[in-house]
């Protein structure tokens, strides 16, 4: 693994970073760049590039109830770039302490934590999401809760493995000898040393969470309408997708480009290719 500054110059990081940065800028500047209000019904089934009264164009066409797809994509970027990072961070907030605890202590705590992750990981991911959302209902907060339950076990295992590896290193022994407590060693010694791996992993998981929000929206279990959300847009487009594919294709391409950006970033930052 090369030093970090060198890895930052890899083409994966450049392309991935550019894709993610593009969507962040779009999301932040949504009110300025969106040509129409996202929920305004203007003219149904307009094809991409069609002209609207007043010389404005529907660059990506409109959906079956006449909303401008480009504007909905732009506002939808806000939804996904707000809730996906929040959910990912929440999963890390739950996973890192548990993983550190299990990995740097071992024993009964380790066994209990690992058993819990085994139980949650034995669900096919989407089944777990459907169970949780089906039971507690779909709302932004509930989506975050579902992502924590489905995502944290993997993070716990990763952090635990990394921490268990670090635990036998000399610098940890030295820290104990200096008189640092268990908590100090975990947070001040082990955590900074495993952080680079975790950052690369976080990019990858952010991509998963974006996909998950998309899948749940697609299944009609995502954020409630009418505010635009990419997965929800695909779901709404499904009945007419075979006659007017542009309505479903646009949000798909947006989502794929953002996920690809996250995956390329993760790939470049990790760079464990030998």
């Amino acid at each position, binding site marked *: 693994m090369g030093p970090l500054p060198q890895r930052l110059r890899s083409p994966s990081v450049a392309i991935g970073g550019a894709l993610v940065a593009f969507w962040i800028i779009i999301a932040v500047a949504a009110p300025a760049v969106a040509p129409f209000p996202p929920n305004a019904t203007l003219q149904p089934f307009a094809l991409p590039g069609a002209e609207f009264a007043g010389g404005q164009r529907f660059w990506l066409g409109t959906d079956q109830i006449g909303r401008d797809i480009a504007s909905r994509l732009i506002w939808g970027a806000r939804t996904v770039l707000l809730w996906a990072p929040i959910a990912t961070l929440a999963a890390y907030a739950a996973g890192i302490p548990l993983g550190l605890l299990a990995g740097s202590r071992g024993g009964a705590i380790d066994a209990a934590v690992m058993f819990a992750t085994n139980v949650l990981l034995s669900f*096919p991911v989407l089944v777990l999401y459907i169970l949780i959302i089906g039971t507690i209902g779909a709302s932004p907060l509930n989506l975050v809760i579902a992502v924590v339950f489905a995502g944290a076990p993997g993070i716990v295992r990763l952090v635990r493995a990394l921490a268990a590896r670090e635990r036998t290193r000399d610098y940890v022994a030295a820290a104990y000898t200096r008189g640092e407590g268990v908590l100090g060693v975990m947070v001040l010694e082990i955590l900074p040393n495993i952080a680079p791996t975790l950052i690369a992993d976080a990019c990858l998981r952010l991509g998963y969470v974006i996909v998950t929000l998309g*899948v749940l929206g697609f299944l009609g279990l995502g954020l409630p309408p009418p505010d635009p959300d990419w997965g929800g847009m695909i779901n709404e487009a499904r009945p007419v997708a075979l006659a007017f594919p542009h309505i479903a294709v646009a949000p798909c391409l947006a989502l794929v480009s953002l996920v690809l950006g996250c995956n390329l970033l993760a790939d470049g930052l990790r760079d464990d290719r030998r």
Partner: protein
Amino acid sequence: MALYALRRLLGMILVMLTVSLLVFALVEATPGTVAMRVLGPYASEEQRQLWLAANGYLEPAWSRYLHWLGRFATGDFGASIRYRAPVADVLWPRLGNTAVLALWTLVVLVPVSLVLGVLAGVREGSPLDRLLSTAAIITTSIPEFASAVLLSAIFVFKLQLLPGTSAMTDGFDWRQLVLPVAVLVLYDVGYVARMTRISVAEVIAAPYVRAARLRGLSWPRVIIFHALRNALITPITVLAVQVNWLLSGVIVVEVFFAYKGFGSLLWEAALNQDIFVIQACAMVAVVVTVATQVAADLAHAALDPRLRAPAPADR
């Protein structure tokens, strides 16, 4: 080996019991809601109480759980609220359809990903290797619902080559399987090929392979008879883990193409709050996932003796 197998099987049973407890608690924690779901919103409070008493819901939760578990283990999953039929009668045919879909997916996925992975891993850094790595990142970034939309736009809308739904209402039709299988394979092939590549590259660099080469054996012979035996152990495990992802993907694909399988059943049940169907589907999904996982672990241990020893505490 027998001890290892026993330990894994006991662990599996413990995990599944815990899962069953979770699934039971999630769906049946409050009997009042169950009665509401079963009888509908217009039932009177008195009717609900009668139903609860008649179906044993007034007993304590632990006794209800044990009864539920006993019935579940014997294949009695209760009655579907929506279909007005035993869940088992609805579930088994749907599972059969999903098995057909999964089988064809594996028939395509396994040879394609293994061959690509081996070709790339044998010559690390070759143009094919780089192409595969790049393609793998792209295909794994396209979730199933997106590739379903994109492939349908091309093959159904533009070229009009394939049907856009796979409900199979007029009996089995292979053309309706092409797109669902393609979507599932496309998402998984990159990852499995990549894992195979890493494993192959690792084995190729091992001293014993070099020794075989130095003994004068031809390169194809070394790869096929010496390297692959060890190099393909990891992909077996990877494929077993893939079953978990495949089941998630199956839900999306079945919903998109209106395929009458287990995934679309679970989805309809979730949207309609058909709680006993949700329970049964979730349990079946977990049993399939855990069983393949354990089977793969056992196969892995049979092939690689190092894994049978209990893991050292500090490593």
